[in-house]
């Protein structure tokens, strides 16, 4: 479903992502972790086609993001870290706009818009202008828009920011159900507890390089530490001395292929 094939990206002379190779199969929820500046956002932007790789290729459902951008986008739903809406559209009008962009037949679009409005409990505000929405409501509407066309791949960048506990629960339940139905979820997050709770596999990036790839259990095995909390493992893995030691670290990205 998602494939990073020896992907590198530089900002000027500075490498942001270096030789990333990663395959995420259908129905998997993958969480990308890493400290600020590790390259998570660059990876996400390449995955949704906003950035082009300097080297390598990113594919979604076999479609190359550079060569077949639209076809790849047709399979993708994206929830950015900062929800972007049209302030002078109502929530319902925004969903119609998205449905039209994805070429959904009118009757089907009406049905799915109703479904997402119910899922994300937007019925009370669906006909209000988006300029009156709180951050949480905006985020829920963006979720609804991303799921409207039943994408094969859902890309989430810090998805829980701005959501209240009830909305967080709704999203978690929905993600579990969607991955059971075969949707692939690629999620970037700082919330370790959520990654531990939801993710089938996690990837930990440090300075543009994938330092670990696998399940939480594999991480614990590999770190060979007494610590049981993901937070301690994460901090131990990402707390590396500058530059030189990255390549010589004892931790190899096990799942990188």
């Amino acid at each position, binding site marked *: 479903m998602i494939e990073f094939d020896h992907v590198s990206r530089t900002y000027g002379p500075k490498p942001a992502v270096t030789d990333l190779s990663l395959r995420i199969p259908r129905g998997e929820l993958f969480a990308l972790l890493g400290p600020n500046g590790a390259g998570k956002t660059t990876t996400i932007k390449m995955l949704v086609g*906003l950035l*082009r790789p300097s080297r390598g290729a990113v594919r979604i459902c076999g479609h190359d993001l550079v060569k077949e951008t639209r076809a790849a*986008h*047709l399979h993708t739903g994206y929830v950015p870290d900062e929800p972007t809406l049209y302030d002078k559209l109502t929530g319902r009008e925004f969903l119609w706009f998205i449905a039209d*962009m*994805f070429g959904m037949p009118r009757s089907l679009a009406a049905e799915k818009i109703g479904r997402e409005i119910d899922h994300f409990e937007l019925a009370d505000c669906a006909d209000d202008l988006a300029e009156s929405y709180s951050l949480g409501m905006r985020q829920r509407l963006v979720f609804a828009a991303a799921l409207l*066309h*039943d994408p094969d791949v859902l890309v989430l960048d810090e998805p829980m920011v701005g959501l209240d506990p009830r909305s967080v629960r709704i999203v978690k339940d929905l993600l579990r159900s969607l991955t059971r139905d075969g949707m692939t979820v690629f999620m970037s997050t700082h919330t370790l507890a959520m990654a531990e709770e939801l993710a089938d596999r996690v990837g930990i990036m440090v300075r543009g390089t994938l330092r670990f790839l696998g399940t939480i259990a594999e991480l614990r095995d590999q770190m060979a530490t007494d610590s049981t909390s993901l937070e301690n493992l994460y901090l131990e893995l990402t707390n590396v001395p500058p530059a030189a030691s990255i390549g010589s670290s004892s931790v190899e990205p096990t799942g990188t292929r």
Partner: protein
Amino acid sequence: MNGTDGRHGESCRLIAVEAESRVFSRLRATIAWQTLRSMVSGARLRLALVVLLSAVFWGLLYGLFFEGFSFLDSIHAEVISLVFNAFFSSLMVMLVFSTGILLYGNMYCSPEARLLLTLPVRAEAIFAHKFIDAMWFSSWGFILLGSPMLVAYGIVRGAPWTYYLLLLPFMLSFAMIPAAVGGVLCMTFVAWLGQLRVHALALLLGVVAAGAVWLGWSLLGSAAAGGVTAEWFDTVITRLSIAEQKFLPSWWLSSGLIEAARWREQPEARFASLSEAVKFLAVLVSNGMLLYLLARRLAGSTYRLGFSQLVGEMPARRQRRIAWFDEALSAAGTARGRPMRLLLVKDLRLFRRDISQWSQFAIFFGLLGFYFFNLRSFHYNLAYASMISFLNLAVAGLILSTFTTRFVYPMISLEGRRFWILGLLPVHRDQIVWSKFLFSFIGGVLPCCGLLCLSDSMLGISFALLCVHEICGVVLCLGLSGIAVGLGAWMPDLREPSPAKIAAGFGGTLCLVLSSLFIVGVVTVAAIPTYLAMAGEAFGGAGPSPTGLFGLASGPLGTAISLLIVAILGAIATCVPLQLGLRAFRWLEP
């Protein structure tokens, strides 16, 4: 390419070009309708004022152009073609730059672009959507300024109804050409010139400015020897005819409009004239469409690439060369005034690092300085020089008012998203407003008074009158800063991130109108004693007695009274809006 494989089955598919256009048209129509509805339901008075002010502005322009065309029609009808060509060719250059800059912001820097680029939509369709937006924003000034001019021309020339019917198609098809060129330049700079695009843009602007300076020099310089004479006028006409090039869209537009209006003079050739006009319209439309298609094609191949390159660029390194100035300003003065100085330093840094602000400031005042510097080229008598000096005072004020409206008025609104920082600082909210006022006043008074000094010395104005102008300059800077900062704090738009849109709103329009009225008031009051003195000299012995009321009004006492009224006007313009702004800002809930 199969767009329906995967788990979504038949629920979605790639849509055709026409369908994309329809979706974007529907989007624009819905947003326009919702905006209008919000304005009608929530800001009826504001909407009415905007409509009224626009109508008054339109009417005034119409009257002005009607008089101008009537005068030209009576003496030298052929000059109109020249005026049209010069006006439309200058406008074309401005539209290229304004549309290019707007497209750059809309296509590469807006959150909407980031949303659209993640949807299965063609890059060409996004460009087309943004192109219509940019064309509308950059052309509304042309429509507002051009329509009264062209209607006045039609009425003076006794044009048939078909002329008025063709006006809008002519204007729109013409505007499309520079807009498409601006789009091509914008995408080319971003996609292929990378980090060099700022230099390339500066070079292009430099070439255009050098061309304008050369033209201005050649037009004005020839008057140096003999003053404004019939020969000089002929020379100017000849040199302006460079704008009458048949390959320029401005010539097609001018010729088409002149043909469409030709009715009264050649009744027998009416149909031929109309055919000619339609032919010119067809040339404009076909070229506009061709250039638009080229720009659209270019968008298809370069937009996503350019966006990716731009997003991936390293942030520019901060220049530390003039940081010493900021540090010196922060450290100077008492500890009590330090918060205010720190706020000033912050605004100064933002100004320095925003190319659109300082470049426009430099261009406006640079051109004004260039014009003032060339005033010595002409020979004037004292009365004429005095008149020009007051006109220069008005021009300096008007330029300053466009700057305060465009950049100072939105300053408080732009604090909206970072209001929590300012709100939590241990400074009184009044200090924030005062710091903006000081920033605007200091930033305006130095170039304004310097330029007035230059203007008066070039014109050979007396020291006393120079002092009057300098006092007026200071009052103008105080009043214009007061109006812009006061209104900005009184009616902030904390949700809008674009300063251009904030300035184009109701508050910005009101700011511009009040600023213009204030400038007219100050300059008129300040000029009265000088003109009474000039009138006294012109009448000579037959005039009113210099010892009577006329003499008093034109003498030192009259000057003192006029300066007192100027000071009162300045105090009102400074204090009233600032008071309103300070009061509103103290209770502002972001």
